């Protein structure tokens, strides 16, 4: 599984803001060549892959999903002075934007989210969070003519962050990059597709998760899975905080795959929860539970498809998601591949029914 780090590096560096996922899709297609029986790209841009199981028929059809899109920006106006106004796409963290390097459009034109120099600001101005509407991207153009020749309204932009390895310590191997939400899920899914399972697999690389779970909704409708496992880069806040703050981290880096019990979009199916608990115990894989009540992911759409789909989400804790750079632990990634793979070998219809 050593090469999964290389896969994550390529995926993290690629450009794929919600609605413009095609470069990521091309990269994923390349990585899974030969690993699936067939694949299709649907009307919204979802990459849907199929891989038959080797168990006896009738086989369960299990969806594995990860979203290709990342949060970013869209150019809304080219100003007279050549600065570019922009809107957020999918909720980038506006506290983190000023002074950051970005790339714009399919040509990856470099720019900077500009800010007035601190020397010129009053204390009040310095202490305030600048709303995204007041920011502008500077591409070094002399005026709207030059800028307009390079950038059009509607072009996408994202962070220019490049992937890097922070630590090779096998006990705590960390990497840094942009868009780990959810390129880490895509990486896990690619890792899972390299193996064979008794059940049929629908491997979904979805689009537009960050703007409302849109791709997963139609893909689940199309493929009618019996069960679904979503693979996500999860919120993580295990970094230092005020000593008397009475909340626990949502997840902790390095504590293993994070299992969701409840978030704002779904409750985990009790049978699927039992499947993952039993699998983790049998395989000796550490797991943690994501603190209830925060966020929503593709699972929220998938589990409500048609007559309902028993679903669970396994997440990889990522610090600083929706910002320019995240940090994750490669052991969490490889343990998620192990856990989901073992669950796919263990799953049967008994896990998909309720006791009363």
């Amino acid at each position, binding site marked *: 599984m050593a090469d999964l780090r290389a896969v994550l590096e390529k995926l993290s560096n690629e450009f794929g803001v919600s609605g413009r996922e095609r470069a990521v899709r091309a990269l994923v297609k390349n990585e899974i060549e030969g690993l699936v029986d067939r694949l299709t790209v649907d009307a919204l841009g979802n990459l849907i892959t199929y891989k038959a199981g080797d168990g006896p028929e009738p086989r369960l059809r299990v969806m594995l999903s990860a979203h290709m899109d990342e949060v970013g920006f869209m150019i809304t106006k080219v100003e007279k002075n050549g600065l570019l106004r922009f809107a957020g796409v999918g909720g980038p963290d506006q506290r983190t934007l000023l002074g950051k390097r970005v790339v714009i459009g399919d040509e990856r034109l470099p720019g900077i989210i500009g800010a007035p120099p601190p020397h010129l600001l009053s204390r009040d101005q310095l202490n305030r969070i600048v709303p995204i509407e007041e920011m502008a991207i500077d591409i070094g153009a002399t005026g709207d003519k030059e800028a307009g020749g390079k950038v059009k309204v509607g072009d996408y932009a994202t962070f220019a962050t490049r992937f890097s390895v922070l630590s090779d310590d096998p006990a705590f191997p960390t990497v840094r990059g942009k868009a780990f939400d959810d390129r880490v899920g895509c990486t896990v899914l690619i890792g899972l597709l390299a193996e064979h399972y008794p059940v049929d697999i629908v491997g979904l690389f979805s689009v537009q998760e960050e703007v409302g779970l849109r791709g997963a909704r139609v893909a689940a409708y199309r493929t009618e899975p019996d069960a679904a496992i979503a693979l996500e880069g999860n919120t993580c806040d295990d970094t230092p905080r005020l000593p008397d703050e*009475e*909340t*626990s981290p949502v997840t902790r880096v390095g504590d293993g795959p994070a299992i969701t*019990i*409840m978030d704002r979009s*779904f*409750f985990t*199916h009790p049978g699927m929860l039992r499947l993952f608990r039993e699998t983790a115990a049998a395989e000796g894989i550490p797991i943690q*539970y994501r*603190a*209830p*009540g*925060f966020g929503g992911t593709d699972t929220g759409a998938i*589990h*409500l*498809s*048609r*007559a*309902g*789909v*028993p679903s669970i989400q396994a997440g990889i804790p990522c610090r600083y998601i929706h910002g320019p750079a995240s940090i994750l632990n490669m052991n969490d990634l490889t343990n998620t591949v192990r856990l989901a793979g073992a669950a796919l070998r263990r799953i049967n219809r008994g896990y*998909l*029914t*309720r*006791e*009363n």
Partner: protein
Amino acid sequence: MQELTQRLTGAFGISGYEDEVRAVIREEIAGLVDELHIDAMGNLVTLRRGTGGGRRVMLAAHMDEIGAMVTYIDEQGFMRFAPVGGLYPSICLGQQVQFADGTVGSIGLDGRADRNQAPKLTDLFIDVGAGARGEVKQKPGDPAVFRQRFAAQGNAWFAPNMDDRIGCVVLIQLLRELKGKDIAHDIYGVFTTQEEVGLRGAMTSAYAVNPDVAIALDVTLTGDTPHATPAMEVYMGHGTAIKVQDAGMIGHVGLNRLLVAAAEASQVLYQMEVLTGGSTDARAMQVAREGVPASAVSVPSRYVHSPSQIVDRRDVEASVALLRSLLRGPIQL
């Protein structure tokens, strides 16, 4: 019916964890339906087969109630929590909750909170009387509901979860009263899950049932308390309420016309309901597949989403009588 209400309001059933309520309902409807199954979302989907020539009528009442879920337990054993459904912090303060195993807790206020302001949920914690984390049986992820207490006083029934156990009561009582009667329609009585967190159970069960007509059985707010805001022409004790509109849907005009005709034909006391906030399972059923004519029949309830909900027994009876009258005739829309 009072005994049934007492039993259902005493069962634990927060969104996502409706198992105990479902088990009670299964016992109560034994022998009243022809088919029954539990789907992936935990909905209890039942069918009372008609004599033929009728429609597929889906009646939905949700089993879940709002509550809290533990997110964190501190060194002293105080538990912070996330809301499950529309849990209002100002109503939580000073209340008692209970967990699925019966453990009772009080809701306390963090001393750092500004007492001149309404508290935020993050200012509140559940106290189960423990001295340290090690004495607490609960884990993060465990759900709790307002402490269950039923009372009957004249025509008024009190319970923290009338929303929507009383809708379940209406549906069960209807099935009881239809026993042995010839009804043309196939009646899909669906006891749904996760209504309070986004009408999720109704969404998937309506897809599976694929009904011709759908009616949600739920509670609605009232305008009859002092200076009730927003003003609303629905009164407790003035009959069942037929949904004209709420924040999520518009009742099907033809279906509402039939409901009104059915009420008048059987001299059932009814009121027309316009609700400015909130919605019901009818919203999800209405947009299932290619669309379903849908409305809601509501029991007016004071203090919904609080531990002190009140309904009037006569409104519950009127709701049952209205549905019985509707189902007796043809449903042409």
